[in-house]
Every structure is written in C-alpha cells, then in structure tokens.
C-alpha cells in the first residue's frame, strides 16, 4: 500500500477546503431536480370575485357566471407572450382535452391572463390556437386591476407576471371546494385528479 506523502495530503485538504467554498456558491445549479410529475395537491374554498372580464370573443362577462354554469372547471393563469411556463400549462390542458374525448364537452377549461393590457381577445385566440383550444376552453382578459383581483382570490398573485408559478385549479361544481395543484403534472395526472373529484361518493 502506497503511503500518502505530506504534500499530497495537504493538497487533498486544500482541494477539499476549496470544494467546500465552491459548494456554497454552487447554489441552485446542482440542486436535484424534482422527480417527474411531483406536484402538491391541496383544497381551499376560494371565493370567486365579482368582476367582469373580457372573454376571447370580445364579450364582457361576469366571471362568477362563467364559472357557475354547472360544469366542472379546470382553471389556470397564463399570458400570451410567455414562452416558458405557460406553454407547459397550456400543453397539459391541450392534451387533457384530447384525452378526455367526448367527456370534454362536459367540462369548462378556463385560462385567465396575467398580462391583460397586452393580451387582447385577438392575441388570446391566437395563443389558444397553438394548443388547439376547443370551444369548451376559453381565455379571459380585462383590466389590470380585475386580473389582480382574480389572482388574489385564488392565492395566485405573486406580483409581476414573471413571478408566476405553475398552478392548476379544479372544481367539480359550484359550491364545492377548489382543488389546487401546484407544480408540473402530466395530462394523465390531471385527468386522474379530475376523475377522483367527480367520482360519486
């Protein structure tokens, strides 16, 4: 067995010390990425605020009425110029509506703009087309103030739109609690959550 010389051990020690120092600066780079499809599920009784939004067809509508027509609701927050998180959320909605098949006519997919001053109805329609949004999947805009009111009501307000986190909301029917899904979930996950929600008790 070869003996480690003094200079070698000093070198080792220095390297180790250096590594410790570097370790502090490694920061977020080398954090283990979350396991695929890990998201947090919780429930809350969010109160839908009494605001008028502008639907992608240009009509001014009451958000309360839009969400309370009896259909189960899937809801998320996006903005048309977002290229990172929003496409992921919308892609999941897109695949979900596809995988639901005929069931999709019974649900209401709702995407509300975090950047309403830029997101005109026309821009929202263009955004929705990228994800093949069907008639049961509507995008909403309005005033900056009203968008903030809705975000706050769903505890999704994080200040600037760039601070938004990936969150999807589900509700079986008006009056029931909202299910909050924080994180990235696959279409399979979302459909499973939805089926569990509407299962007769």
């Amino acid at each position, binding site marked *: 067995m070869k003996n480690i010389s003094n200079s070698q051990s000093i070198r080792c020690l220095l390297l180790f010390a250096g590594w410790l120092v570097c370790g502090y600066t490694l920061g977020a*780079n*080398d954090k283990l*990425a979350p396991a695929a499809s890990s998201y947090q599920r919780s429930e809350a009784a969010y109160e839908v605020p009494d605001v008028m939004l502008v639907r992608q067809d240009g009509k001014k509508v009451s958000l309360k009425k839009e969400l309370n027509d009896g259909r189960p609701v899937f809801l998320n927050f996006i903005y048309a110029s977002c290229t*990172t998180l929003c496409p*992921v959320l919308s892609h999941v909605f897109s695949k979900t509506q596809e995988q639901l098949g005929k069931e999709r006519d019974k649900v209401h997919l709702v995407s509300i703009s975090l950047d309403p001053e830029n997101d005109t109805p026309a821009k929202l329609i263009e955004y929705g087309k990228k994800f093949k949004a069907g008639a049961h999947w509507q995008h909403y805009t309005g005033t900056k103030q009203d968008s903030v009111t809705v975000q706050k009501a769903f505890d999704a307000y994080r*200040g600037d739109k760039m601070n*938004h986190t990936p969150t999807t909301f589900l509700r079986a029917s008006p009056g029931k609690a909202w299910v909050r899904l924080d994180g990235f979930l696959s279409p399979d996950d979302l459909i499973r959550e939805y089926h569990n929600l509407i299962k007769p008790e």
Partner: protein
Amino acid sequence: MNTEHVVIRCLGRCKPFDWLMVFALVTAGFTVHAATSPANVLEKGRQIYQEGVLSSGKPLVGMRLDKVKVEGAQAACVSCHYHSGMGSVEGNLQIQPISARFLFGEDKALAVMDVRGDKRFNVTHPPYTDESLATTLRTGINNNGVELNVLMPHFDLNKEDMAALTAYLRQLSNQWSPGVTADKIQFATVIAPGVEPERSKAVLDILEHTIAQKNANTVPRKQVGRRRHMVSSAEMVLGTERRWELHVWELQGHPDTWQKQLDKYYREQPVFAIISGISNTTWQPVQSFCEHQHVPCWFPSVDLPPDNAGHYSVYFSKGVAVEAGVLAKYLHSKTDRPHRVIQVYRDDYVGNHVAKDFTNALLGSGIKVETRILHDNKQQELLKELQGLAANDVVMFWLRPADLASLKDIAQPLKATSYFSAELMGGERGPIPESWKSTARLVYPYELPEQRRENLELFYAWFMRNKTLLVDEPVQAETFFAVEFLSKTISEMLDNLYGDYLLERARNMIGSEEVVMAEEIARERGKQGIPVTAGSNKRESTTIYPHLSLGNGQSFASKGAYIVRLNDGGKLVAESEWIVP
C-alpha cells in the same frame, strides 16, 4: 480519381461523356461543400435552436416529464433559453445559460446575476465536449452527474443535427457585442432633424450629465483599489463595471437617407445600444437601422413609433396612436356620444398618421369623423368654422405647443368640447386657450399628477441637485429613466454584454424592477420623514407612466391613457378609468 485528374485528362482528347463527368464531379464537389459548409451547418443549428426544425425539415421532438412529448416551436431551445442563450428566471424556475462560454468555456469567473434567484457564480461544471453534450441532451443528466430540471426535455438527435446544434451553441454569445471592451461601453443617441432645439438640448443635457456622473463613480477593474462607492458585490468581485462613452448622432435631411447616415456612423463607431433619442416625425429609419445591425434601440422619446416594432426596439408607448385608440374607445362608450368629431392636425408625418388611426378606430361607431388641416395664416378661418359647431360636437386637436399658441390669443369660446393630445402638448401645461379651459379635455397617457409626483421623486431630486431647467417634463423624465434603467440592467449583466441579452432582461424585468425601485424610494422617503401624500397607494412606477410592462415579443411598455379635464383651479381631474384600446 479527383476532379483535377479528369480535367487534365480531358484537355487532350475528350469525349462529351468525359466532360459530363467533369461537370458532375465539379457540381458534386460544390454541393457537398455547400451542404457541410460552416455557414450551412450554423444555419441548420440555428433552425433547431430558434425554430425547433431539424435538418430533415421535420419538427424537433423532445420528451418532458418522461412522458409528455413536445415538438416544433414549443420544443425549441429559444423558448426557455432565449436568443442570447442566457436563460432567465420565471417563478421558481431558474433556466440555465447555455451560451458558448457557459457550456464550453473555461472561464471560472463567469456569472449570471438575478435579483430573484440569488447571485449565482456559474460554470460549476467542467466544459462540455461534443460527446458529453449529446449525452446530456439524451439522458437529462449533466456532466456533473446531476439531473437537469424536470422541464428540460430529453432530445435524441441524430449525428447531423447534433453537430449542427453544437456548432451553433459554440458560437452563441461567445463574445461581447460590438461597442463593448473590457473597460468601456460605447453608446449613441439619435437626434432627428426638426426637433425644437430646447427639447433636443434637454435630452442631451440629461444624457451627458447622468452618464458623466455614472462614470465619475465607476472604477474599472484595473483600479479596483481606488473604488469610491459600493457597487453590487458581484460587480466588485468580478470587476465588470465599465465606463460609458456617449456619441451624438445627428440626422440630416429626408428620412429616406437616415438609415444610410446611421450605418455610416456605426461603421465609424460601433455602439452597444442607441440610448434614448428624439424625433417629432418618423422613427422608422432608426428602428430599421437597429433591426438590421442588431443594435438595441432603447426607449427613445418619439410621438409615433412604427406600429410594428421588430425585435431590437423597445419603446415607452405607441405615443399618439394610443391616444387615438383611447379617445375612440372612450367616445364610443359614452351614453351621450358626440354626433361628430372634427380632427385638427398638421399635414405632417405624425398628423396624417394619427388622423387616419383615429378615423379607423371610429369606423362603425355611428360617430361622424371629419378632418381639418391646420395651415399657417389660416388660423382665423379655422376658428370661425369651429365656432359654428354644436354642443354635441367634439374637436380633437392633434397639435404641438407652437401651433396651439397661434390659436390661443384669437380663440373665442366654443360650444363644442375640445380635446387635446397630452403627448403632443408635452403634458397638461400646454397653451390651451383660456376660454376653452373649462370644457377642455385631454387624452392623457401619463400617471395623474399627484401619484406622478411621487413616482418621479428620484428624477425631481436629481433635477434640483443639478439645477436643470424644466423644458418638457415627459421627455426629460423619459430620458432620465432610460439611463437609470439601462445602468441597472447592464450592471446586473456583469460580463455578459450581449445586445440580445440586454433586451431579454429589459423585457422580462422592467415591471418588477420598477416596483422594486418605487418601493425603495418610498422607504427612503419614510426614513426622511417626508409625509405621505394623497396618491400614495401605488408603488409601481418611477416614471411618468402608471406602470411599464413588457414581455417576450413585446415592445411597447405603457398601453393606455386617461381622459382628464381641468377643474376650476386648473387642476387635472380624471374623467375616466385607465383605458387600454
């Protein structure tokens, strides 16, 4: 057998078939060369990176979350890592830089700074090789053995595509943009002809003073020991602070010649960005210059930027075009709509465009729109005609102060309601005829005065310290913001001085940076015991605008306006909410 041999052999006694072979070989030689030429390979790499299109023409396909397929544009690297390859921070997600220096470089001092994501001293992995990069893309495990973020798709590219993408990444943001050296950054501002001398002087004074002050505080890396003020710890450690040099590019003559003039200026002195600038007429040729030369055009003070802004320009707003849209929406929504609107404007670039915009905006509203061009020496006639208008008519004056002044002294009371453009008037202090003031309205794309005074604390403080003359508050406040925001953004870019990255940071962070600055200023005021005034609910802006916000692909930061009137004391009162057309 190569081409040479065939040709030499043919020169003696060639049959047509031999010549055909020569031709075929030469053509084949060119084709093969073209297909694998560096330029061609780079273009293929660019298509993968920016468009999500493979060499075969098929869409790029990636697998995310192990089971969700993404393809084409949605799979393209640019959508998360951006044009510069520098990535960003969105929510809790930190998107890594994948530019050349970060993937393949040995530069241990390289770093990315983001106030939301902690200062990060990057390049903590060994340089990638062609092989290890391909492996990482395929497996989702980086060359430190760590799993990449769950959102990063796995890509299984063939040899040709991998070679093309790697070649593209090896040159992506691999050097500072033109105009940047280790110690200095070159900038230019652009002054169009026809701007009132006092206004262009006001812009230049602010630019020169603020930049000189910044330079006085800047100690470049060679003289670190003599640093006199605190910079960010990152800048201090890395010594990335640089001196700024400003060049003034004055344009002459017809706008059709401006782009050439700018190209010539740029050839003689490349610059990192065009900062601020001013024009009373078109700005299109300047935007085209920036687009063509890939130079950021940073927040000029212009009344009517081109409607289609392109990638390299960012503006405060669409100027009078916003006012036209807002006024149309406002009049259309009134229960007592006017019967008719007469627009008065100058027969110039801005006047003609805004009159057309406004007419178009009111199509189908049932409101009749007419136009009157203001001619010199015809003011009396015009006013006489306006006198004859009914109470349910509206007159919209798209006029600058000099033109309004020519009407002011001879104007008699109007039955119709007069509207004015705050943009063209330079705010509410324009020369509105006295007898019209009680019914006058302004289309007002700025924050209301009390809140605005708070927003502009820093600007006013600077103003007083420098004993500057207030000539045109909107333009001067805009210029001040342009420098401040540029300075902040550049300091956070550390050594990563690429034009694309400058714009990406500006677009992504202007909204949140404004809130941070506004809150800091409010805190300072609190510390100094300055009493809170009436308009102090908002902490969103340090400019004349209620809020500035951009995003990927967006170029106009403020999008609306108020309709206001003047009360008895001459104070501004809002007649509407903030309207976005």
